Each structure stands twice: as C-alpha cells, then as structure tokens.
C-alpha cells in the first residue's frame, strides 16, 4: 500500500515537472508522428517490392513493428526516464546526487525504477496499439482468444526482459561511470523493429543468446499470429524471470561497490 501511494506521489510530481515545460508537448507529438510515419513507410516500401520476407507476411512484419512501438512506449513511461536519471547524461552516479537517493528509507531498486514518469508515452502507446490493430486487420487468418492470451503473456515477458536488460546495463555504470551504455542499447534495439528471423545468423545468435532483444518483439508477434504455442510463451516468461533476478543481483552488487568505493 505504501509503495502504491509512493508511486502515485512520484507520478504527480513527474506530471507537474512535465507541465512546467508545455512547449515540449508539440515537439514530442511531432517526433512521435514522424517516427510512426517513417517506420510504416519503410515496411510499405519494402512490401511494395516483395510479398514475403523470409516467411514473414506484411501483416506479421507490421505486427513486430507494433510490438516495438508498444514496448518502447511502456519503457518510456517510467522505466526509461527513471533509469536515465541514474545513468543517463546527467548521471546521478557520477555527480554525487545519488547519495540523496541512497539515504531514503525506500528500497533503492524500487526508487530508481519508479521515480520518474513521462505520461506523454501514453500517446506513443496509443499509436503502437493503433498499428497493432492495423496489423491484425491485414492478417490473412482470423485471430482467436488463445492468440491474444499468449500475446499478452509474451508481451509482459518482453517488457520484463527489457526492464531487466536496462537495469543490468545501468548497473554497469557503477563500474564504469560516464559510459553511456543505455545509448548503445538504444542503437542495438533498432534491430528489434523487424523479425529477427530475417537477419544473418550471427546477428540472430547475438540477439537471442547474448542480448535477448529478439525475445522482446519477435516472440509476442509470433504469439499473436499463432506461430508459437503456450510452451514457448511460458519459456519466455521464465527467461524474463531469470534475467530479472540476475539483473537485480547485478544492480545490488553495483550498489555495494558504490558503498565501498565512492569518494
């Protein structure tokens, strides 16, 4: 209950901060719309020339793009902004303000995950959902409730995986502060716009076993189009759980290092 009230308080403060900069709203709107247009244009131009991308139909490919947008929006809602304060450009770990966060009688992982909210991402979320419905509408086969159910599970898993990856990468900042590792992740994450099945083998292996970005967007899209079953869906959930545990451990190790080394 306490933690829920805290989240509400963080949300309120974040909203107030955002409203202090009203001009940004229109710029953000423009950016979101432009990104959407460019992303869809890419797929339309592609499928103007072909019918089938390594077995992926137009509808399925747009589906992956939709999942990419949706998960990007969920990340931008609170995970991204909160962690950016820790390890982004104005690095708290680096400039010493992190001491204030550590001194609070609140679990530090909870704090760095939930403290900053960007409600504009809800708009991005709506756009992503819109693209999803467009993809579904273009699907040659109708979707059953099982498809949607598995989609929900794998989408949740995908969100947990991206959180775990970002948390783990952010934890690395305790060992090398100043290196903008989340920017590297952002660049790599671009590859998740498309089904990972289309990439050459070495990229596919990288995106499945080393930095499991492929699990984040491709699997949910496959669940929706019925290409994978409940076994795979549960596996992705299990993988998400494992990654989360590992990332949390890494994060706490990082905090311990901060405590023994900061000066």
């Amino acid at each position, binding site marked *: 209950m*306490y933690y829920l*009230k*805290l989240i509400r*308080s*963080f949300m*309120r*403060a974040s909203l*107030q*901060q955002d409203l*202090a*900069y009203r001009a940004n709203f229109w710029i953000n709107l423009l950016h979101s719309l432009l990104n959407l247009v460019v992303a869809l244009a890419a797929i339309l131009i592609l499928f103007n020339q072909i019918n089938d991308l390594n077995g992926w139909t137009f509808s399925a490919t747009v589906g992956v793009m939709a999942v990419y947008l949706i998960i990007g929006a969920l990340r931008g809602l609170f995970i991204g902004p909160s962690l950016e304060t820790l390890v982004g450009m104005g690095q708290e770990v680096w*400039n*010493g*303000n992190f*001491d*204030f966060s*550590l*001194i*609070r*009688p*609140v679990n530090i992982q909870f704090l760095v995950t939930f403290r900053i909210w960007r409600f504009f991402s809800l708009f991005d979320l709506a756009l992503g959902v819109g693209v999803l419905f467009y993809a579904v509408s273009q699907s040659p086969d109708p979707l059953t409730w099982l498809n949607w159910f598995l989609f929900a599970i794998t989408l949740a898993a995908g969100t947990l995986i991206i959180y775990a990856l970002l948390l783990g990468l952010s934890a690395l900042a305790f060992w090398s502060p100043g290196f903008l590792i989340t920017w590297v992740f952002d660049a790599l994450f671009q590859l998740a716009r498309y089904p990972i099945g289309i990439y050459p083998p070495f990229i596919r292996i990288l995106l499945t076993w080393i930095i499991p970005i492929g699990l984040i967007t491709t699997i949910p899209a496959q669940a929706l189009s019925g290409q994978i079953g409940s076994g795979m869906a549960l596996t992705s959930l299990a993988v998400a759980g494992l990654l989360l545990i590992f990332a949390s451990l890494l994060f706490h190790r990082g905090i*311990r290092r901060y*405590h*023994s*080394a*900061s*000066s």
Partner: protein
Amino acid sequence: MASIISVKDVSKTYRVPQREAGLRAALSSLTKPQFLEVEAVKSITFSINPGEMVALIGPNGAGKTTTLKMLTGLLQPTSGQISVNGYIPGKRGNDFLSQISIVLGNKSQMLWDIPPLDTFQVLGEIYRIPKEILRQRIDEMVALLDMFEILRKPVRNLSLGERMKCELVASLLHQPKVLFLDEPTLGLDISVQNRLRSFILEYNLRYQATILLTSHYMADIERLCNRVLLIHHGDLLYDGALKGLSSLLTNSKIIRLTLSEQQSEQQSTAWLPEGAEIIERNHHNFTLRVNRSRTAAITAELLKHLPVSDLSVEEPALEAVIDRVYQDGAL
C-alpha cells in the same frame, strides 16, 4: 547519558588503481593490476551525545567527508565499529534511514522545475509523514526561515540562499534524530548564513536533534558548535571544546597595542621585548605575537616602557591557526 553516535577504531582504506602512462603500462595493468592503498581514515574513535552540535573540521582530503559518509551508511568502513542511534549505518536499514538526514552544500535534492512545496510532499510520502503533521512542520519552519513567498516558485528560479533554505527544510520534515550537514553555508552571502545558523540553533533547542557539521567557515563553527573534531590526514587530532583548540594548536598569543604618541621606526624595534614580533602595524596601533608562557612578563614590560593607551591580550584567530596547521601538517 548514552551516546547517540559511537565510533570505535574506524578506518577506511581506498584501493585506487595505479596506472602509468604508455601502452606497455596499460597492457600490464590488465594482467597485473596495481593498486595504491589510500588510508583516508585511520582508526578514529569518538562518541557524541544526543543533542550535541559538533563540528568536523580539517583540510580538503583530510577524511572528514569520508567520516561523514560512513556515519550515514553511504560508505562502508574498512574496519571498526560504528553505531548511530543504536543502528549500524552500513546495514542501511529503513528504520535507521528514517531517523537521519543529510544536507550537502553544493548539491540539491529538490526537484528542479516545480515549487519546493511539491518536493516536500513527495518527501512526506517517502517518510510516511501524516499530512496534517507535514503541514504543521512545514509551517513552523517556513515561519522561522521567513520563506513564505518562495514556497510556490519553481526551484530553478530561486537564488542560492533561498534554495539552501529549502534544502534545510526538506531535510528536517521527518524530524531526524541526527542531522549531517556538509558545507551547508557554502557560497551564501552573510545575511543568509546568519539566518541559517539561527535556524539551526533554534531547531536544536526545540527538538534536541544531534547535529554533525562540516564547514570551512569559522563563523559557522564558532556560532553553532561547542565541540570540534579535527581530522587531518585521516587522524583525529583533536576532540574537545573549541576554546581549547587554539591553545593546543599554538603556543602563541596576540597582544594588541595602541600607543598614545607616534614612535619612529627606530624606536619601535628597540623597545620590543624578547619573544615578541610585530605582525601588523598601523600608525600607532600594533599587533604582536608573543610566546604564550611569556605573555604576562611581556605585557608588564610593554606597560613599563611605552606610553600605552590601550592593550588587549587575545587568542590567535582560529582560522589563522588552523590554516597554519593545514600548511604545516602537524600540531
């Protein structure tokens, strides 16, 4: 009275990676990393009673910030025992954290683009302060600091002094038993410094909060603290009343002399007794440094041989004394 802060044989050693320039050194540092051990704090022991206001002084890099951070749990000691309010700070338990607070002079915990009141409300949630009580505490402190007008201005529009007032209020909302202040008056103008000092004194009087303060401003220390811990090169060199510090740090005293007639330069130096040196001269006002043990004798001689219109004996200025300690590096 049981102490609220107890520090026993606490040390902190940093391992700093050593690397020389050049490619070969860089490669060898990969396989055989070399570390330099920096002893930031060397086996210090002290204890503080509830309600005391104590200053932690020492030159930069002496170990005072390290000590402060160990007391708050932000840093783990390498060895020794620390107890604050019955807790081990290093464990960083939530109960412990709810009873302490920090103010860092050149850093801000306020949310930047919104009024301070909004930050106070978030802190109220974090520290589980009931709404009514939060409001009362804010009102009380706002009245003491005369900051009513700035409560609703975005923090980025406030001056440094106004921001520090907010920092102080923010740190006291949950009425911590122990307050750690790291250079709280840094960069502020005199009137704001005075304001903040009065506030801290008043707060300590009303709530018996234990306060540990580091500062480079002697005025802070002289006004607020009756006890001083001097840390230098990681060692605790002095622990006691402020007054005692200068007599321990120096074996000299200052005599201020005003003569009723103008003396020429020749005659001035001639009349100087042994063991006295002129450190300042302004027309017929003289400032002399004399050996502490010979103060009475020298004073008698000056009165006997010179047309003295005014004479006073003082401790040397604490700042000057401490500066010399910092420079000489020893007591």
